[in-house]
């Protein structure tokens, strides 16, 4: 199974990973060979089998609605690429 160039571009766009033109063919081939591997799964009859989303049958825990966290803002923002006045800086998105 192989992907078309527009498909590869679409996936890269969804994943927010820039693909230079020179990388397109190589990426398409690499993804195609991975698809070849996972295509094998189509051979198994899984009619009536419940999908297994997790390693254990989880029951989500509930906790008391109480404050458990303290303020970590300055520690967490110390590792950010760009912050100002306690805010994360990104390029302008609204004109």
């Amino acid at each position, binding site marked *: 199974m192989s992907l078309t160039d527009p498909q590869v571009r679409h996936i890269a766009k969804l994943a927010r990973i820039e693909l230079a033109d020179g990388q397109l063919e190589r*990426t398409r081939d690499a993804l195609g060979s991975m698809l070849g591997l996972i295509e094998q799964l189509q051979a198994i009859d899984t009619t009536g089998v419940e999908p297994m989303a997790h390693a254990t049958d*989880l029951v989500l825990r509930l906790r008391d609605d109480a404050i458990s966290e303290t303020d970590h803002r300055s520690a967490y923002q110390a*590792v950010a690429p760009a912050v100002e006045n306690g805010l994360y800086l990104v390029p*302008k998105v609204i004109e």
Partner: protein
Amino acid sequence: MDTVKQLSARLAAGDVSAVELAQDYLAKIQAANPALNAFVELNEAQTLSEARAADALRAEGRAGPLTGVPIAHKDIFCQTGWHARCGSKMLENFAAPYDAGLIERARAAGLVTLGRTNMDEFAMGSTNESSYYGVVHNPWQLDAVPGGSSGGSAAAVAAGIAPAASGTDTGGSIRQPAAFCGITGIKPTYGIVSRWGMIAYASSLDQGGPMAHTAEDCALLLNAFAGFDTRDATSLERAPEDYTRALDAPLAGLRIGVPKEFFGEGMSDDVRAAVDAALATFRTLGARTVEVSLPRSGYAVPAYYVIAPAEASSNLNRFDGVRYGYRAPEYRDLNDMYAKTRAQGFGEEVKRRILIGTYVLSHGYYDAYYLQAQRVRRLIADDYQVAFRDCDLILGPTTPTVAYGIGDKADDPLSMYLGDIYTTSVNLAGLPGMSIPCGFGAGGLPVGLQIVGNYFDEARMLGAAHRFQQATDWHLRTPPR
């Protein structure tokens, strides 16, 4: 070569201090690491301050069995005072502002951090070749891979420059490098060791665990690492266990299941001979071997390469150049910033897995790939439960071959993926698995024996491994210097 158990006894007897031990190991690391590249970060001041604290605890009479014992931590665990680069350019400047659950527990046990070990980028790889910080060399043969993704941890222990290390295992990343480097490592039952602060690859499969020379050491370390953590939604709330409790249990009557599918095509003759000899040793020790079948195990690698990349594509969304990590120096707008940051910050293998994961989750393909893989996952897990009706533990090879040369599979990721044929099914099922050294194969490289137990059966696995190690000396062999 010193085991954790031996170091613990020397510390308790006052023969050596934690500071002396740390200095001794740091000197060994300085001498050996340039050839191995097992450690990616050392911080002598930090190590010695932890060692002094351990000595102070001992002086106050508050030392536990591991207080002052040195350990290396995989660069995937957030740890204050250290970087957590996860093998990636993306996190080159990332110094975690908090401790991972496993790190907290290691600290509470008094373990002293020697440094941070190299790994495949974001734990995606079986050779350590995907690390941004360079490949790790196998101490047994420097031009061979150490395995991955916990390759730095495995190489450090094998070379004797750390007595023990932490690792993580998503599809074999503790067991496969343990096998390639001739050491012992255990991936516990999913949910036993906290994933809080452990940088996520595939959350439904990731599990941390110890790597050391012996099963006894792994049991001591698992006692420290395991435990409920409210901050990890999948952490299991269970009463604490003593994983050393069955170390001396006799093997008489133990039923060992040998899956016929693990001895088929693709398994090399040297691995087969060493594993067969190990099974014969277990029989000599009183265990009984029975053939079992895991009929769908051949689909574990394809199912893994749907589920793990799907989860990775979601988990790695967080690396967007906004809150931490790398940000591209030039961009037009916000979307361009994301796309360039991720294109420049991630390596090839990581991008491949994010892209394939994005594809299998995308509209029109979700049912055919992702849900089908999850259904196959259940069949694989069910096969194990059927097998465990006839046996207590399942034994077989950890890997189909011994370690191969650096670069041998670099251009053929698929052949590297297929090397995880015996390990991935264990993660998919959520079962505990370990690897212990059981001989040597081509080129004098170590062979690993995989032991798989049913859920929460770590103590029995560690006991069987310990008994084997009492009767053999593979785990005591050290690489040539």
